[in-house]
């Protein structure tokens, strides 16, 4: 494995290359879950950097990708409001509440979540807020970067259940999980593609 990753999109297919070797090919119109297992964090970072250079690829970091100096509501609305017009009266707080409900957060938590700083949230809540943003602004390909690292099995199962909401709302947009090679890697139901860079082999999914 050379470590020189680059990705291209051609005819609605994303191809990830390691040097000249094709490691992963995805259709952007067929939806579904896909998984790429990497041997170490450095490789994961390289792969993510290569993928996010492609237009339409969105990355959800393991910590939710939130800005520490803003509240949850401000974090949520930043990306949505950046391109908005001055007279846009869209109710971003209501959109946040709707999306967070889809993420399975309890109702009593929703009332206070918007006013909190990300550092005061637990890891799953931070991830849920980042994921809620993706629900309202779904990218062509959602890359979920090392979401399962350090999670208990119950938390991993809950995360997979929450992620299912993306497929329900966007059945034709794929999700690519990038995970570190681990003996505790949770099973991904309905995973269409598994690429294991630790073995440098592409196999039909048995996960």
């Amino acid at each position, binding site marked *: 494995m050379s470590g020189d990753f680059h990705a291209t999109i051609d005819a609605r297919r994303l191809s990830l290359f390691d040097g000249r070797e094709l490691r992963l090919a995805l259709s952007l119109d067929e939806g579904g879950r896909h998984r790429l297992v990497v041997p170490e964090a450095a490789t994961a970072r390289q792969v993510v950097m290569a993928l996010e250079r492609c237009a339409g690829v969105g990355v959800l970091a393991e910590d939710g*990708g*939130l800005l520490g100096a803003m509240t949850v509501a401000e974090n949520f609305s*930043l990306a949505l409001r950046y391109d*908005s017009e001055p007279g846009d009266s869209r109710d971003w707080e209501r959109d946040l509440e709707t999306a967070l409900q889809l993420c399975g957060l309890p109702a009593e938590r929703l009332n206070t979540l918007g006013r909190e700083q990300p550092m005061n949230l637990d890891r799953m809540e931070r991830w849920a807020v980042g994921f809620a*943003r993706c629900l309202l602004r779904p990218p062509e390909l959602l890359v979920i970067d090392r979401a399962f690292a350090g999670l208990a099995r119950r938390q991993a199962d809950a995360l997979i259940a929450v992620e299912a909401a993306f497929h329900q709302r966007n059945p034709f947009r794929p999700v690519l999980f990038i995970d570190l090679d681990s003996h505790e890697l949770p099973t991904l139901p309905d995973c269409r593609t598994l690429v294991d860079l630790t073995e440098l082999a592409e196999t039909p999914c048995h996960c």
Partner: protein
Amino acid sequence: MNTLTGTRLGAYLVLAWFAASRRRELARPLLREQLRHQVFNAGVSALPVIGVMAILTGVTAVTQLTALVGADSDLTQRMLFLGLFFELAPLLSALVVVARSSAGIASELAVMNLHDEFTTLRRLGVPAADYLLLPRIFGLIIALPAVTACFQVFAIGSGWLATAVLEGRPLAETAGRFLDLADPWLALASLLKSALMGAAVGIIACHHGSSGKGSTQAISGAAIQAVGTGLIAVFVVDVLFAVLVYALR
């Protein structure tokens, strides 16, 4: 060109060019909000300190001048205008802003760099340089002349009062003499000088905050560099304007 951009001065010039070429992005509602926030932090919240400094400086300047040159009000007023209004007001205002805002901007950006928040912004589809740097640079360009104007008003006002008390002249007469001797072009030049100082301080703070390595040591390093280099830049601008005024006279 690589040699130029590889130096610190080259980096400042590149950032200045970036800010000038991207200034129209400030029309976005979110960036305008950030700009207002920066102007408030750098300018409005500095007014109490500026006010006290200005009043004390005005009184000190007048008492010292009166002790030095006697009760010649015209000379005192002329020196007040050139020394205090044109020279000291922009300089002292800039020093206050460097001490308060420059370190804050640099360390804030360095912390964001440490937590990889520039990447986070990029992933959100928000240009990090536009969102973080433009409001801070233009915030100081707007705030510093405003702060300077406040300094001038407070300093000159306290100077007039001191003159009236020391020389026993009516306040209106003192004010009238000052305004007769004041040069409106130099007054505008003092505000322009402040704006350039604000630009320099903002560019330097933003550069050091955003370009350091992502480490905790880099945070303090960025703040120290921003303040130190900002102070030098303020004096460089001051000297350049002094030479320019001398040459044009």
